[in-house]
């Protein structure tokens, strides 16, 4: 693709005091593409999300939105630029009805002079229509979110982000806590969001899930990009190998095959 990426990081680094969490990360997210960010625990995935979501400004490098450099100081600013982050905990109140969660923080109001009240009927209708558009047919839009399945809750969170004008969706480990069937539900909606023309950043440590929907793959390791390749150049096995330790695992195997004692450092 030759068009300007919706979101682009070039040479982005983030240090917390002397600890360097990210170093020289390049990442581009284009409309209608799913960019998968893979990495083990501690690889810098969460820091990367926080930088993209506007929670942490990067220490070095440039963050561009629509080709223009930006410096974000709050998640709200990011959201105003159309960058929505769906966190792992989904940011939902489990005992609140689905429609209230859907509009939380973006409540639709009807005004009479200085007074305003919730447009409850309108919000119920819209939430229901948006969810049905994504193929989720709830028996009751007034049911507490906590009663939905994990996959459905993810989809509600995604639908909410899309409805409020997200052009770039950052999904933080959306399938991590889900079973096979539920993961399938979520992956289907990631594909649906891509078809709808959104740019998606799919953060995961599951290479199989990544390869099912990804157009572009970035593997992070110790805060640096270890692999950056389009789908055509990556086989699922590569990702699995990268994720399960890659070269280190090879070394370990050699060590073990030689029957040596504890591996020497280095």
């Amino acid at each position, binding site marked *: 693709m030759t068009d300007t990426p919706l979101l682009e990081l070039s040479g982005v680094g983030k240090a917390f005091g002397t600890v360097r969490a990210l170093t020289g990360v390049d990442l581009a997210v284009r409309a209608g593409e799913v960019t998968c960010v893979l990495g083990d625990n501690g690889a810098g995935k969460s820091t990367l999300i926080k930088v993209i979501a506007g929670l942490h400004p990067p220490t070095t490098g440039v963050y561009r939105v629509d080709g223009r450099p930006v410096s974000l100081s709050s*998640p*709200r600013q990011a959201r105003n630029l159309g960058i929505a982050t769906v*966190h792992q*905990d*989904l*940011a*939902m*109140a*489990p*005992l*609140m009805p689905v*429609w*209230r*969660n859907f*509009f*939380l*923080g*973006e*409540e639709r*109001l009807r005004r009479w002079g200085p007074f*305003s*009240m*919730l447009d*409850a009927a309108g919000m*119920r*209708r819209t*939430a*229901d*229509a948006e969810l*049905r*558009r994504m*193929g*989720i*047919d*709830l*028996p*009751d*839009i*007034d*049911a507490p979110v906590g*009663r*939905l*399945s*994990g*996959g*459905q809750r993810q989809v509600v969170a995604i639908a909410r982000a899309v409805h409020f004008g997200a052009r770039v969706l950052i999904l933080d480990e959306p399938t991590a806590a889900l079973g096979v*069937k*539920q993961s*399938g*539900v979520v992956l289907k909606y990631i594909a649906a969001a891509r078809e709808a023309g959104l740019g998606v950043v799919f953060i995961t440590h599951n290479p199989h899930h990544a390869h099912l929907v990804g157009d572009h793959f970035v593997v992070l390791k110790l805060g640096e990009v270890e692999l950056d390749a389009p789908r055509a150049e990556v086989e699922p096995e590569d990702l699995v190998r990268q994720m399960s330790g890659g070269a280190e695992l090879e070394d370990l195997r050699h060590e073990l095959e030689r029957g040596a004692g504890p591996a020497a450092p280095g």
Partner: protein
Amino acid sequence: MEGTQALRAPEPAGEGPRGERAAGPRRRPPLRRLATRPELGSVLGAVVVFAVFFAVAEPFRTASALGTVLYAGSTIGIMAVGVALLMIGGEFDLSAGVAVISSALTASMTAWWFGLNVWAGVAIALAVSLGIGFLNGWILVRTRLPSFLVTLAVFLMLQGLNVAVTRLVVDGVSTRNISDMDGFESARAVFASSFAVGGLNLRVTVVWWVLFTALATWVLLRTRVGNWVQAAGGDAEAARAMGVPVAGVKIGLFMTVGFFAWFSGMHLLFAFNTVQSGEGIGNELLYIMAAVVGGCLLTGGYGTVVGAAVGALIYGMTRQGIVYAGWDNYLVMFFVGAMLLAAVVVNGWFRAQADKGVGGP
């Protein structure tokens, strides 16, 4: 959980027997919705308590008894409005009982000491009550301590201050009678009058109780702030992530409790002319009892103000019913405690049934 079974391809509108659903969002049938209301348990409890006293106590059947029952309910119920909102917002306030007395003392003593129109004292008391609420909320937000600790500390401090300051100002444990001061009559009309409706002698607090309950219900269910209260109590982190000003909501809720403490304090002052500085202790638990009986969850995020009103009504019926039945007065607390236990169990059972009944996901 068979969540994915509820996932279907979108249905074309207006087609097939289910087509009419496309006209509006799906909701359960009204009867089912009624059966899952948080206050259902308390309403059933109120009916049972009413039936019992109606059967065993003849004086309970009169109109004058109804007026007394409603009045007893309103004395707890007005505060329970604020306490229920606060509990839905995820906190509670142990200082609410003595804060009522603090407010009454402030109004009475400032008016008396400075020789002001009592309305000036009433206004100063309002400022002090809102200030106490603000202090509770501000300490909570700043220290991130649980509200149990923060409000316990404020409860103890107010309890001490109430008596100590009263002794200092009027050299006694109760305030001077202010019924001959300017503005007393008009203030009493607002806070502590009564009027007849048919054969029923109704205290004005009953009217305020109903008004406050209706207003708080509307705010909770139909305004943006109400949505924020539910979210802040349900999951404060989630609410913050969605842009809800959680700290402001919590401080506002404590100030709302402060407002109702002020109102209840003004009622006490203008109903009895003097205030006993050592009173109020233990009432905070009755307010919490009313809210919990009415279906509010102690952990926040769930409940209704109407439920708290029904909880307070149950208290009023029990309190007066035992008098009318000629039983030992000390049994009131026994029955209130038993009712609380029963209500919590029944409410939990209804919630479980509601979860089963939702079907699909």
